[in-house]
């Protein structure tokens, strides 16, 4: 398999044969297997939030932020579901990972699970594109090997969702057995799911499961681990990013015009050697190219005689 050819095909949104996907997934697993639960990354680096299968916007992201050939990236998860090109987006990142292993870190998001992808689009996309679910199964195997977090220059903690009451130090993340489907509770679950909110202490979500954390939890975690920032994704932000708790936590969102209808812009966060933060904002690609061909199969409002 020629990696560069596959990258080219993926960038054009072309169909990738099942065998190619299989071998890509296998190689990625080997590579990811040797990564720690929390990887260490050096500056300068670009932190990217949710992608959700918006391949063309992912290409814009790379274009505008300098490209994988010359830059380091951390992706905070949620590569799949919702968009029309979940497979291509995820595989492109895997190919980059295989091609430039030290330039890209992929963290697991709450959508990188069997249960969630069955409901929110990735599974359907695979069945539509391949007529069976094999490719979905290969990808889910890879999901189980994705790391849970990253630390930049020992100063910035990157995670998909947020904090967990079971995690006060990074060593507690290191001791998690991550190679499994994301469980419904525990540290691994919290890291992928929890949300910051206006609460005084750890509190139960009104849904009856899952934690909310507030300013105090963020400040304690930062202080204890000598961090200055928690960079996370997981929540849609109209402006592409949102800093909270006096800049101690930031939400980065990298799927512009989410679901092809929210009208939001996207952002990535570039962290320089002196830990200066630069947000790069970008807009969604147009639904059609210059000659009127559809790039994104937009759902046209269909008139129906609803009752």
């Amino acid at each position: 398999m020629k990696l560069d050819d596959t990258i080219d095909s993926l960038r054009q949104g072309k169909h990738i044969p099942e065998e190619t996907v299989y071998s890509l997934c296998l190689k990625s697993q080997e590579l990811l297997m040797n990564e720690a639960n929390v990887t260490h990354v050096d500056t300068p680096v670009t932190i990217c939030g949710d992608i959700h299968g918006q391949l063309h916007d992912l290409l814009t992201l790379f274009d505008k932020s300098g490209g994988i050939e010359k830059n380091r990236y951390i992706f905070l998860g949620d590569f799949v579901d919702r968009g029309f090109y979940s497979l291509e987006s995820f595989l492109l990142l895997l190919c980059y990972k295989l091609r430039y292993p030290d330039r890209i870190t992929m963290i697991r998001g709450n959508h990188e699970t069997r249960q969630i992808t069955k409901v929110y689009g990735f599974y359907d996309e695979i069945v539509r594109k391949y007529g069976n679910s094999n490719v979905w199964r290969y990808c889910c195997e890879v999901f189980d090997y994705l790391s849970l977090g990253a630390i930049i220059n020992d100063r910035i903690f990157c995670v998909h969702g947020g904090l967990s009451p079971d995690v006060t130090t990074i060593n507690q993340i290191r001791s998690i057995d991550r190679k499994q489907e994301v469980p419904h509770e525990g540290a691994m679950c919290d890291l992928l799911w929890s949300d910051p909110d206006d609460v005084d202490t750890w509190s139960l979500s009104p849904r009856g499961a899952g934690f909310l954390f507030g300013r105090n939890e963020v400040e304690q975690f930062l202080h204890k681990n000598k961090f200055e920032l928690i960079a996370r994704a997981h929540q849609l932000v109209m402006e592409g990013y949102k800093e909270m708790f006096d800049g101690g936590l930031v939400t980065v969102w990298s799927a512009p015009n989410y679901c092809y209808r929210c009208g939001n812009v996207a952002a990535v966060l570039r962290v320089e050697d002196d830990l200066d933060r630069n947000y790069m904002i970008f807009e969604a690609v147009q639904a059609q190219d210059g000659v009127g061909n559809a790039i994104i199969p937009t759902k046209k409002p269909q008139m129906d005689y609803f009752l």
Partner: protein
Amino acid sequence: MDRQRGARHGINTIQINRAREIHAQTVRSRIPQPTAASSTLHSHDCAPTVPRYRSNNPNNPPCAHCGTVIIPAPKATFPFEDTPSITVDDWTITTRKKPILNSQELDQWGEQLSGLTLPEMIFGNSYVQIKNEKHDLCIQFNALDALKAVKMEDSGIRVSYAHKWIKSKREQQKTSELHDSSLKIAQHYDWTYTTKYKGTHAGPEFIRDDSTELPLDKLAKPDPILFYDDMVLFEDELADNGISLLNVKVRVMHERLLILSRFFLRVDGVLFRVFDTRVYVDFHENKVIREYKEHEGEYNAILAKHKMVHSHDPKAVLRDSNWVAQQLPLVKRECEVLELNKDSEPKCEENP
């Protein structure tokens, strides 16, 4: 298409402005010119009558000869912040579709809806509105008023694995420092965003009459649709435990219009809710009927019904609110009527 992409580096403002310009041109070019050639632009019979309605919907331009709205419209729709409307007799129907709220707007809404953790997507500047100028009647469907109707108390509903989750945390508490207070719910609002919203109404009052039915026979007729829109007002995936969605659709025909505002809730493994508000207007009779229905049922009961019909993808149909609504038991129905006198001064009449 790759050739195109290779040539540019991302998208800059100039390109976006250009795209918008092109769109404006497309819209303008769709409007038929009153020339001999225009008859070839669309294929309906131009009746030499004065049209009863005027429309400025750029997506469905009117015929230059007879004013009839051309359906289907010429290709391509870019919903760039236009506010299309149509006027039929005294009635004006307007819709607006805008992006989700920005941070500043969210902060303002947060103050207005104090205590409510807002849904993930709020299309807070979108609405569907019908107005009768002569009778000062206005009915609007918008997200803010819908969210104001969300109860600020514990709904009692929990996600399917909540019991297991709490149990395991209680176990864990014996060996960790996790406080009791952390296993309590600090915020008191209905996290399912269930809303009994029937629209925001100003003007003459409706009169309750549950015996009235919507004229389904008339609505089922395939009358030409002059104006159509479909929009989401708010949506939340309940942290991937299902979906909570408020959607509004409107269709305007020659003689009548129908609005359907549907609240759809699915809590995976727990329950379904479909709360529908329908507003029907008969332009001839100047009669408005508002029907409100609540459907609710257990998740597994609905899933079981479905398995008999399909088998390969059991989850797909659970996203289809129409299918779900048909399966759910009706819990409540209310109906209201408003008759506007056409010729004399505005006044409400008792339904006979």
